[in-house]
């Protein structure tokens, strides 16, 4: 049972106050995109055993979405941050790199 801090309202609450929303930082592919791109966007998720960037909604709370950086193997939460970003902020990336030597943010395609 995870504990998460909503960066929008500052509340730290248990998982049951939140709703998970899958992988974060996906680029939407709409009309005009290739089958490959569209498939990658909707289905081919990273699903790593390790550092994962994901979306959550503070559903039983302020109702706002946010992003979390979390380890799927230990459930450690490196941090939560605004959903209105296209990649994790530097302080989060630095924190992960410090805790998981060798880790790096995915190549920008």
């Amino acid at each position: 049972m995870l504990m998460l801090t909503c960066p929008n309202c500052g509340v730290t609450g248990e998982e049951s106050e939140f709703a998970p929303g899958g992988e974060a930082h996906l680029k939407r592919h709409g009309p005009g995109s290739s089958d490959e791109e569209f498939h990658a966007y909707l289905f081919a998720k990273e699903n790593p055993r390790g550092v994962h960037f994901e979306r959550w909604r503070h559903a039983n709370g302020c109702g706002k979405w946010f992003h979390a950086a979390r380890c799927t193997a230990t459930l450690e939460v490196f941090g939560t941050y605004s959903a209105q970003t296209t990649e994790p902020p530097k302080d989060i990336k630095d924190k992960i790199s410090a805790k998981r030597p060798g880790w790096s943010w995915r190549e920008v395609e």
Partner: protein
Amino acid sequence: MKRYSAFAVAREAFRYHMGWERAWASPEPKKKYDAIIIGAGGHGLATAYYLGKNHGITNVAILEKGWLGGGNTGRNTTIIRSNYLQDPSAAMYEKSRSLYETLSQDLNYNIMFSPRGVMMLAQTQHEVRGYTRTAHANALQGVDTEFISPERVKELCPIMNIEGPRYPVLGALWQPRAGTARHDAVAWGLARACSAMGMDVIQKCEVTGIRQEGGKVSGVTTNRGDIACDKLGIVVAGHSGQLAEMAGFRLPIESVALQALVSEPIKPCMDVVVMANTVHGYMSQSDKGEMVIGGGADGFNNYTQRGSFHHIEETVRALCETFPVINRLKMLRQWGGIVDMTGDRSPILSKTPLGNCFINCGWGTGGFKATPGSGWGFAELMAKGQSPLCDEFSLDRFKEGRFIDESVAAGVAH
């Protein structure tokens, strides 16, 4: 392989059971195999078993990073049924169910298939309609199911409260030849049979890389050295993504924790398996007397084999409401497993972008029931490159929008 029988047990009794041989050998890996299966869970072992039995391919190694049957094979709630809505699913699960009927005899290992009947409760008008549709589909698919009345439900399962204040039972989809089996025994019996055919079941052998040449698989790298093979089958529920990555492709899969629990054992009080999807819970009674209860899956990626307790709460309250007698039973043990959920919640049995490399994964919450059927079809796919049981479960379907969606029949959990 010495045959098991009551006579053999009696004979051994007189020498204090000192004469039993190993159920399966513990060989060192050879340099090369015709086929390697990664993963000695039920599906991997069944694949190997049918590669040998149906296709005469016995130069096979089954590599297991831990102990055989140690993943979801030994963690599920052992339900076997085939009352699926969509044709490809019904074909796969019914094939599997029919193989279960004689698996004990085939393997000469009692896997305790118990065709006690499975009912899926309809507790809303919407569910009644969904299950009526399934019953119609099943009739054309050769799956023996019927939609039964609340009175019949009560007759089959007297401890159920069919007049619950919130969701009275309006009927059920009943499959009389569905049931349960002893999950560990399925893996053990298959491993013994594979071993007897001369296959190598190699435990504590972790695959760390997949080797390829000219777009085709050539072998694997393991903690016990490199092993070459002509064909490779990846059958590693919960770790499919990692293996696919080694083979150089990505799967439409997310891994999440699914939980289950058992009560303390009590004398028999429930002779059927009951699934209640509206309230999210299912329950059966094991031969040991424990009430075996399946819970919900977490919605977030998780590899810890531990789930969140609120899912247990949700399931238990649903079952307390449906079966009032369990209020005063106690939860003995809870556990979790990692399940691979695909984009349409149906499995993948498919060729992959890597030549001669095949993958069998994505069974989500419902893999145990498919064990022999999945092995049957996947072995055919590996041996011949094509299998009617597997064709619809290809990786390409997600790209084409050709989903096999079972949730349409009233949000059915597996």
